[in-house]
């Protein structure tokens, strides 16, 4: 079931085109990742979806209840963890307080600790606990693993995976590719406000190969990836008449985002 449909979304800030006509959908039971370098338009896209920014044009059909983890994890600094949760409960519609506390415990946060004393990572975890305690179908998370140590990051990824298995969906942004590969089912790679590649991760990995040519030559339709002392390496779509090396998702991402196409 389609929970979210974005069609030809556009958003500019004055002269700056942040989102330039993108379309995608998020289905129930999937983890969908919006990827791209800083300034590619990921956060603007999310804010338009949630109505926090006014879109210039395009269509957004949101068919689901939503909980949102913003990029800036700002909480009330003078509150304790416990009071923060109580406050969230009073704002929330379907807020499960028990779940919030069990997550706080799982994340090893002290309920009587002041928010001001939490590290970046711990504040992210508290915000995550509050977001995840909201019983909704679509979780929209902007950089949910920002500042987390590897153990906690894996825990959060595992929670995201479980959400998808329970028929929920996650739309999230990240710039850490190794974790994206672990948890995302479909990804959209953004560059300068446009989606340059989208699909199941497995399909994208199977689509491309890396081809090296002597310096000075180029590969028609290929994306420049990098150069060595005597060669240039290009990312190209697989075809029967081209020989190449398998491309990691890292390489695919880097070449597409550089966007130097021949």
């Amino acid at each position: 079931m389609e929970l979210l449909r974005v069609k030809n979304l556009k958003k500019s800030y004055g002269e700056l085109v942040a989102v330039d006509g993108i379309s995608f959908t998020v289905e129930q039971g999937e983890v969908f990742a919006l990827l791209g370098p800083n300034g590619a338009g990921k956060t603007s896209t999310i804010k338009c979806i949630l109505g926090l920014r006014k879109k210039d044009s395009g269509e957004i059909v949101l068919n689901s209840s939503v909980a949102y983890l913003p990029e800036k994890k700002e909480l009330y600094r003078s509150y304790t963890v416990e009071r923060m949760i109580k406050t969230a409960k009073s704002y929330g519609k379907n807020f499960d307080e028990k779940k919030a506390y069990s997550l706080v415990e799982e994340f090893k946060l002290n309920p009587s600790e002041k928010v001001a004393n939490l590290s970046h990572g711990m504040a992210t975890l508290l915000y995550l606990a509050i977001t995840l305690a909201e019983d909704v179908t679509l979780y929209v998370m902007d950089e949910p693993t920002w500042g987390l140590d590897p153990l906690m990051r894996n825990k959060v990824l595992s929670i995201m995976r479980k959400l998808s298995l329970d028929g929920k969906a996650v739309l999230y942004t990240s710039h850490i590719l190794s974790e994206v590969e672990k948890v995302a089912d479909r990804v959209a790679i953004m560059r300068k406000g446009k989606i340059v590649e989208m699909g199941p991760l497995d399909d994208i990995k199977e689509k491309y190969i890396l081809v090296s040519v002597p310096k000075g030559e180029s590969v028609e339709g290929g994306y420049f990836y990098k150069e060595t002392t005597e060669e240039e390496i290009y990312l190209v779509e697989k075809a029967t008449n081209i020989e190449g090396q398998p491309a990691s998702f890292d390489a695919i991402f880097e070449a597409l985002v550089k966007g130097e196409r021949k």
Partner: protein
Amino acid sequence: MWFAIDFNSHVPVYKQIKENLKALIAAGKIKEGEFVPSIRRLAQDLEVNLNTVARAYRELVEEGVLKVVRGMGYVVVGVNEEGMTRENLAKLRELLLKLKQLNVERRVIEKICEEVFEDGAAESEKP
């Protein structure tokens, strides 16, 4: 059921699942007629998406390795020997081409063939 998935590998996850299951069947760890875990269960165990496991199972059904028992799940038919043979012959051809490029003489390769096909020698002649 659990096996390691290399998420950073260039090999798609569904293919890794297929290869792992085939290896388990070929090694006799899952036997003919036995059920493999449900799609949901394996997705949970490996922490991957349902669609990824579903895709692996679908292709294994197409290859004749698994079959669907309605309302029950997926049952092992056996590793499709014809398919495995074809796959491995293709690998052998590739290896032979490489050896040819390395100027390995034909009789050296023929000697390996003779040794392998001699009775009882097959198991000890792994490269």
